[in-house]
């Protein structure tokens, strides 16, 4: 979602001038928040998911499906309950980049009760229904990462033609009208990113070469108004050319946010979840088709990195550094660059470009090296949106300038300080997961990751491997059928001998292995999830954890279904969404084995996905047959918990009085 400040954004020439201003005040604001809230303790471990939905419109006569641009029409209705009664909604809604997207979260975060795991899917289903109710005939809410023909001619309803010479993105494929119109942020970002970069964003997705694919494959883009001039990037042979922020930010994803008990716990979670980002990316792969072509990759991640890449040619290393301060190795949308807990320092093995002044200032104000480094790294980025009403702020109270930069660094994990004037705690966002076509699968992925964090905290596990290896894994994860074919660096021994001191931890861990033995090795997803003779397997750890807490039968049944899905997908006996979509396309009668996914194929595939997501059709290649026991009604469990709480507080009261 990002920061949704209301107001009037400045144009790029004006925005540019505030780069240093925002930087300095953003750091100032972080320092204030840190000092004020570094000792904040929150009782509860809270968490919640975010689902971004697509809206589509089927034309059954023409066998065509288009993205329907209705978010601006229906969001105010969706947001009514929150506006009327903010403390008591079951779901919350937000706009997203494109007018065909709506983002929903549960009304209240989930907590520590096991029964909450039984609510996730039901709440997701409710959100889907709430959106669906507001749509017209032949219009449907769908959950998948990327609309297959995003950027193809007439891909939206209403139809709009791209106007590359005047639009914010200058894209050949993506008209400005597709961008959510009711908030200036998205269009402003689009334009400013392009202006800062001094060219359009560009990415070339490797094409899946099939037996009838023209060789070489080079698109003739003149039909889109492509001019061969210096400002245009040229398509590369055997690749699918993408040139708009919307082709990346118009993808839907699945996120999980955790609220930790303390800043230290948040930092710990951030680090421990980082090695899992590529694993979840591989398991959730659901983006094999781009602009109507079959790609040779299964995920959206690299595309997104490129579609908001505001780095200038100097920053990208294409020209020697003259006007820019730094050579930047990654886009502001990227995989995690560094761990942030003091104990993790030894695993930060890639160069972390930092704003030196920011770093020094943070250190001066008592922030430790690892956290200072993380923030100083985020702040190498210039602001790309400034609102004139929000320039002069009170740095001791507001956090908009900090959030300006923090929320426009899109990494696989995000560390989020508490917002000003709330009692929300320190949080981390888990961001890599691709969106699945059913609520069941999305709930399964969310449940898996949350249970894993509980197990990590219970058993004091350590999953860390060098950051450079996590980066390699992120690339491996996106390969076609990575779940089946790729190997990933993963830590061999996850247990730790307990010691709180940083200097001790390193030497203690060494004693568990032979001298010079590497702490990690390459494993398949199957081994990581299901284990082997030499590795315990993440599922085994979770099962162990579950056996030690009291879980009611329905919740346990649901969790078992979810873990069963994860297990089978890791083993390859169930397909990823990406693999299945490829399968449907390549077996479609209209497919010519030329890598082209035309309107008819798209229509049939999405219609199938619609039926599967509604339970009208089964999909045994992807989903197990049984359904979960998910429900929004947890009153019985909560009542029991409350009964116990009353007894406990009476006892404690009694004991304290003695």
């Amino acid at each position, binding site marked *: 979602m990002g920061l949704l400040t209301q107001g009037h954004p400045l144009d790029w020439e004006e925005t540019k001038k505030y780069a240093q201003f925002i930087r300095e005040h953003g750091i100032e604001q972080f320092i204030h928040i840190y000092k004020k809230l570094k000792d904040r303790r929150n009782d509860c471990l809270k968490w919640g998911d975010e689902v971004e939905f697509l809206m589509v419109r089927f034309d059954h006569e023409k066998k065509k499906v288009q993205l329907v641009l209705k978010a601006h029409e229906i969001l105010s209705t969706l947001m009514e309950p929150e506006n009327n009664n903010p403390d008591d909604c079951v779901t919350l809604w937000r706009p997203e980049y494109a007018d065909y997207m709506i983002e929903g979260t549960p009304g209240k975060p989930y907590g520590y009760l096991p029964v909450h795991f039984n609510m996730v899917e039901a709440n997701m289903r409710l959100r889907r229904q709430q959106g669906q109710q507001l749509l017209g005939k032949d219009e449907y809410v769908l959950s998948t990462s990327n609309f297959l023909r995003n950027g193809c001619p007439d891909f939206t309803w209403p139809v709009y033609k791209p106007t590359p010479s005047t639009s914010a993105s200058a894209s050949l494929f993506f008209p400005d009208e597709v961008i959510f119109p009711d908030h200036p942020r998205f269009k402003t970002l689009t334009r400013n990113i392009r202006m800062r970069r001094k060219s359009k964003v560009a990415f070339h997705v490797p094409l899946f070469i099939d037996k009838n694919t023209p060789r070489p494959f080079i698109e003739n883009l003149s039909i889109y108004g492509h001019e061969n001039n210096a400002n245009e990037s040229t398509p590369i042979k055997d690749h699918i050319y993408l040139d708009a922020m919307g082709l990346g930010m118009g993808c839907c994803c699945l996120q999980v946010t955790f609220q930790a008990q303390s800043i230290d716990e948040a930092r710990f979670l951030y680090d421990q979840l980082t090695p899992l980002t590529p694993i979840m990316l591989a398991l959730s792969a659901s983006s094999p088709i781009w602009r109507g072509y079959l790609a040779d990759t299964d995920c959206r991640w690299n595309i997104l990195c490129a579609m908001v890449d505001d780095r200038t040619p100097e920053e990208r290393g294409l020209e020697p550094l003259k006007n820019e301060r730094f050579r930047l190795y990654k886009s502001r949308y990227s995989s995690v660059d560094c761990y942030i807990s003091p104990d993790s320092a030894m695993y930060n093995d890639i160069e972390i470009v930092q704003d030196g002044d920011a770093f020094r200032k943070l250190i001066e104000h008592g922030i430790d090296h690892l956290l200072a480094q993380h923030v100083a790294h985020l702040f190498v980025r210039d602001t790309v949106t400034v609102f004139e009403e929000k320039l002069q702020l009170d740095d001791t109270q507001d956090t908009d300038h900090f959030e300006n930069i923090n929320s426009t660094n899109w990494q696989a994990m995000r560390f989020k300080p508490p917002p000003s004037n709330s009692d929300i705690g320190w949080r981390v966002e888990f961001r890599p997961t691709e969106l699945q076509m059913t609520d069941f699968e999305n709930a399964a992925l969310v449940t898996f990751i949350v249970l894993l964090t509980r197990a990590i905290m219970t*058993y004091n596990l350590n999953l860390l491997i060098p950051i450079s290896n996590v980066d390699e894994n992120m690339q491996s994860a996106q390969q076609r059928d990575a779940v089946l074919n790729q190997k990933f660096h993963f830590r061999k*021994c996850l247990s730790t001998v*307990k010691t709180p001191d940083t200097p001790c931890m390193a030497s203690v861990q060494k004693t568990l292995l032979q001298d010079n033995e590497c702490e990690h090795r390459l494993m398949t997803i199957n081994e990581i999830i299901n284990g082997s003779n030499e590795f315990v397997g993440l599922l085994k750890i979770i099962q162990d954890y579950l056996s030690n807490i*009291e879980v009611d*039968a329905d919740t346990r049944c649901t969790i078992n279904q979810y873990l069963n899905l994860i297990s089978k997908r890791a083993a390859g006996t169930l397909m990823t969404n990406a693999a299945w979509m490829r399968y449907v396309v390549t077996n479609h009668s209209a497919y010519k084995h030329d890598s082209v996914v035309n309107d008819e194929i798209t229509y049939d595939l999405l219609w199938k996905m619609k039926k599967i997501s509604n339970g009208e059709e089964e999909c045994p290649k992807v989903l197990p047959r049984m359904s979960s026991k998910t429900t929004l009604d947890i009153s019985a469990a909560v009542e*029991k918990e409350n009964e*116990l709480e009353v*007894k406990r507080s009476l*006892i404690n009261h009694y004991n304290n009085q003695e």
Partner: protein
Amino acid sequence: MSTEPQDDNQSKPEPVLKPFFPKATEILFYTGNTLALFELVKKANSSITDEVIEYMSLMLQAMIKNTDVKKYQEENYVKLASVQDDNNSAANNGTTAGVPIDQEQLTREDLKISVKVFLRSLAPEVLTHTINTVLNELKENYLESFMISLPNYGSQLTLQEFMPLWNIIEDFIDKQKILSAGVCDFMLPLLSDLYDRAKHKPYANQINLGVCCSIPEELNKYVKENNIQLLTHSDPIDVINESDFQQTIREYCHEYDALNWKPCSIVRYTSVIANRGIIKSKGFFIYAKRELRMTE
């Protein structure tokens, strides 16, 4: 007679020439917090039986290594306690080290202690002794949740046989030593008979994971109507039998040390941080008795 080493993954001690506890008629193994020993690369599919045997083995080995051979010679009641060394006080206190968080000590109010007893004897004194042992060793005034499991008697158990045990539990509830208690693997009509007769109703019935997705409709209806939680477990019918128990001792001790033991109760306890879903400690008590022939 010397013991026969059965596996040689550790350096085997010299053959045991004399029994360690020749007069013992009661033995208690208390593991302390086993989370400190959580070794993930080991057994991929350890059941509670495997865990219990493994911890017994570790404690017996520790006893042999660290204790003066005379210590238990005259004892009738042998208590073998936790496996960690004393330096690991963080583990004993149940605080989480290694996770650089939360330097504050947790108070009792922050924790929720759950206990499940696998009873292999219907003798009321065994249950009473077990509950008292748990309270004393854990140094706790009360336990939030207490589940009783009677694996060998399962479906043949009658209310007549069970009520004396439930009455003992009710006493502890009256004394506020147990806050809520439940049963395991009870079907109808036993569950409803108990519910009707009990002064303190069971708050939960724990059923095997294998059936959690196919609960009989009338049981489902009954528990919902009577506000009984259906929880799940993946424990076997019998945690450890005489033969395995004795065999485990025989592996490390003198043959006479292993003779005749009948495990009477096995307890698994966990303490969870009350509103965080994080397990703080987990451990076991294994209590056995035997009769010895008088020496001539």
